[in-house]
């Protein structure tokens, strides 16, 4: 285990460091603020690529680990990546420069504050993905809400304040119970370190009573389900998306929603496998409702951005379904689908944002026949839509396909219901494309719209290349995920076996937690 500063610390805190550079600039020097923000986010992306180079696909442990004592002996600064978090970190560093570029012109008030928020947000997001200490994880998890809150609330559209408040209260409500659960786990295991907790649970040193496990699972799961968002906790999402500025939507859909599904994979499954198995039928059903409901609601939207927002509800349903189908293939598909959704939906929001920059509306009926004035932009739009509706050989296909096959192994009925979502996605996306791009131009203002600028082409092209690359070269990604995916499933199995062999609680008065283990094992460890 490495204790020297590792690359991960650099990757996590580089954006925060560049905030200091931004603060040195005068607030009205917009050009240089934008340039430095772009340079910082690009540098961050390049640095993060070194993670990919140093990553060993055959290693099942966390890599680039770094551990320092932080508060007493119980709370550590512990970071590391595995095949699951690696690509999510890369997704974050890939999308942030694009978010910077797409805000180049569209953000013109308090420019400094905006880019500072965006970079702080990047640090928070990466921090969540690489934290291996529950306390550190929670700190990043909560801290990242504030920059997002400001991005929605300060630079959003008409109902931005309502959206920002709804967003933050929903998320805080979920996470506060997770905090209680984290503390409870600490009381049982005497540590906040994820690996230590896992080891203790798997070795049967600490075993959770079924009720306790279910409650802890519920507290964690609720926080993540709100974030995903899983039906019926999704109501904050369309509002937040519609009101957020383009960059906010890109990061929100591209990365932030993945925090929820990532959390399920990282915490809910390995720590509480039995509860996960018990709750899987319910969660699977909710995921399927989300898939179908999200798709149906997306179909009838007349606001383009809201439509894209509802596709997230539908697509993230696939991810949750894949995770709770508990097969290697479905989980790999779920992880891959997380990445795809990040790229594709990010790209969709970027496209919608470009339309908004031109017409200052998201109403579909205001558009129509846009392919004539804007052939390039609309071609990209079509390409991205096709990726979103999972057309082979684009990236969306691989993810959905893996999820569906993996799910079919154990739950053929779930898979068939979920497949209907794939069909529905073709309907709402193609129909939307038809209403926006094809046909006669109905609104005069649309006749003279300029086509994509060089800056926009650069954004769209990098997205399109990524979409195609992830579609064709998926083994490059999945081979790095496979070991970690298997290790999640292994941990689940081991923990379940440990639980079965653990002594059964004495009958009688139902206790909420197990009897207190020997004092020697759990000492008050706040202070050395």
């Amino acid at each position, binding site marked *: 285990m490495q204790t020297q500063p590792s690359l991960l610390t650099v990757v996590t805190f580089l954006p925060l460091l560049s905030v200091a550079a931004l603060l040195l600039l005068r607030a009205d020097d917009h050009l240089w603020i934008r340039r430095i923000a772009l340079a910082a986010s690009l540098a961050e992306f390049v640095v993060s690529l070194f993670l990919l180079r140093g990553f060993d696909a055959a290693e099942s442990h966390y890599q680039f680990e770094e551990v320092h004592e*932080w*508060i*007493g002996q119980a709370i550590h600064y512990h970071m590391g990546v595995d095949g699951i978090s690696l690509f999510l970190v890369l997704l974050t560093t890939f999308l942030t420069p694009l978010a910077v570029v797409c805000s180049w012109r569209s953000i013109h008030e*308090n420019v400094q504050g905006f880019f500072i928020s965006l970079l702080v947000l990047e640090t928070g997001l990466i921090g969540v993905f690489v934290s291996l200490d529950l306390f550190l994880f*929670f*700190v*990043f*998890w*909560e*801290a990242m809400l*504030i920059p997002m*809150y*400001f991005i929605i*609330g*300060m630079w959003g559209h008409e109902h*931005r*304040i309502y959206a*920002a*408040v709804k967003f*933050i*209260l929903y998320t*805080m*409500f979920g996470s*506060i*119970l997770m*905090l*209680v659960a984290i*503390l*409870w786990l*600490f*009381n049982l295991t005497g540590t906040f370190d994820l690996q230590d907790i896992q080891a203790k649970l798997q070795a049967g040193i600490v075993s959770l009573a079924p009720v306790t496990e279910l409650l802890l699972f519920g507290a964690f799961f609720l926080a993540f389900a709100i974030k995903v968002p899983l039906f019926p906790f999704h109501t904050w999402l369309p509002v937040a998306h519609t009101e957020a500025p383009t960059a906010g939507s890109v990061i929100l859909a591209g990365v932030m929603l993945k925090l929820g599904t990532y959390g399920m994979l990282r915490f809910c499954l390995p720590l509480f496998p039995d509860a996960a198995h018990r709750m899987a039928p319910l969660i699977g059903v909710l995921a399927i409702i989300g898939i179908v409901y999200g798709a149906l609601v997306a179909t009838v939207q007349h606001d383009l951005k809201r439509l894209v927002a509802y596709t997230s509800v539908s697509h993230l349903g696939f991810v949750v379904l894949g995770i709770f189908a508990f097969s290697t293939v479905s989980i790999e598909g779920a992880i891959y689908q997380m990445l795809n959704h990040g790229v594709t939906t990010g790209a969709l929001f970027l496209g919608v944002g470009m339309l908004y920059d031109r017409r200052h509306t998201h109403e579909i009926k205001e558009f129509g026949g846009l392919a004539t004035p804007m052939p390039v932009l609309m071609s990209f739009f079509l390409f991205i839509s096709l990726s979103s509706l999972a057309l082979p050989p684009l990236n969306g296909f691989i993810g959905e396909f893996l999820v569906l096959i993996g799910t079919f192994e154990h739950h053929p009925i779930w898979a068939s219901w979920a497949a209907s979502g794939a069909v529905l996605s073709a309907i709402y996306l193609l129909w939307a494309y038809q209403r926006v791009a094809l046909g006669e131009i109905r609104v005069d203002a649309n006749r003279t719209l300029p086509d994509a600028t060089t800056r926009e082409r650069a954004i769209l092209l990098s997205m399109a290349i990524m979409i195609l690359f992830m579609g064709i070269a998926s083994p490059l990604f999945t081979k790095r995920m496979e070991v970690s995916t298997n290790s999640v499933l292994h941990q689940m199995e081991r923990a379940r076996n440990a639980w079965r062999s653990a002594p059964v609680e004495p009958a009688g008065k139902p*206790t*909420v*937690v197990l009897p*207190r283990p020997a004092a020697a094992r759990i000492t*008050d460890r*706040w*202070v*050395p």
Partner: protein
Amino acid sequence: MHFPAEQLLNLYRLAPEVVLCVFGMLIMVLDPLVEAANKQVLGWLGFAGALAALAAVRLMANDPGPAYSRLIVADPFSIFVHVVTIGAAALAILGSLNYLDSEGIQRGEYYSLVLFATAGMGILAGANELVTAFIGLEMSSISTYILAGFRRRALESNEASLKYFLLGSFATAFFLYGIAMVYGAAGSTKIDDVQAFLESWQAANGTPSALAMLGLGLMFVGLGFKVVAAPFQIYAPDVYQGAPSPVTALLASAPKAATFAVMLRIFCVAFGGSAHYWFWAIAVSAVLTMFIGNLAALVQTNVKRMLAYSSIAHAGYILVALAASTSAGVAAVLFYLAAYVLMKVGAFLVVTHLGQQGEKRLEIRDYAGLGMKQPLLAASFSLFLLSLLGLPATGGFLGKFFAFQAALYLRDPRFVWLVVIAALNSVIGAYYYLRVIIVMYFSEPSGDYVQTAVAPALSLALVLAAAGTLYLGLFPARVLILAKAAADSLSLR
């Protein structure tokens, strides 16, 4: 004076209070000699007095132990609380300097009263005997009654003072009556004697002495009033709103910290063996306090009043940790108090500045656009609010974190419920703290906003409070070790 060495040692262990009173009297003597235009000097003298008292605390820490036949103890616990209360007073003095000028009430006795009140809190922190605690309580209370009415010409300030005085003296009478009951039962008013008596009684009879428990209940009325625990919180919003803003900063922080200290000694040490019996009183009060504070704060439009309700809510969170009555619980209370004092004083000092002359601008809507006009001030206010909310990386979060941890550590379903209620309450709190931030950053500035520069003294206070809040949030280990040592110096049961 037969044993001068012992007398000296007694004084040594009372050094902070001596220093505070000496400076307080010095200011009173100098007051007539200083010209009206230069009265601010007296304020700086008061600040110097607070710093000197902190130095005296450092001295006292070299040789801890009991003084004046165990009426006072200078143990790590008392030292920790001393630092917290004197620090809060020092910050409040810094925040008062320019405020008093702009209100036209710059007078020496203001600073003397602040120092006397602080000396009273010091006695509360070190009291090992109930009547001594009562003296400390009265000393700090009477000074703050006067301070609350210091804007003599403002009606609301007079109202605050009178209300505080009438209800406060009523509450302290309850406290005194409680002491009498305990004395009647135990035959002593020293904390350790009461503890020993209660333990032997309980060993002999199985249940705690009813008379002593009645006394405890009466004492809780008096102390609950001071820490603003429900159902004794009614006065707080009016008093906090009416009192001059820097006085509110002091009222909401230091006396509360000192009173919690004496509560810890009475509940967790003297009555520690009967924790099982008083748990419900504290738990019910904690739940009520949290709900009343948070729900009422939701609908406030006046910032001062909102912060007043918020400090009621915070008393509830602290009571959760107090109810645990363990070493971890006491340490959590102490850590919470340190963080709480910094963020609360900081928040009220920002309000002091933004209120402008005559405290006219206290509505939340008056803060519109502050984020654009005075970014640093708005950022520091946001920091204090987010810390009050309990956002990670701030002291307020770790305060709650340790408090919840201490309560859950007992693995008792009752505490699980208590913590879940407290956790949900902190989400309710998020709404009203964020509302102020929304107005500061997301709204357009109103036309008649007059931007005023922040005076150097106030800036210093704000920087200290903000740095402290962040320090406690990011590197809490050192303070936590001190809090832990302080908790261990009590003989808990």
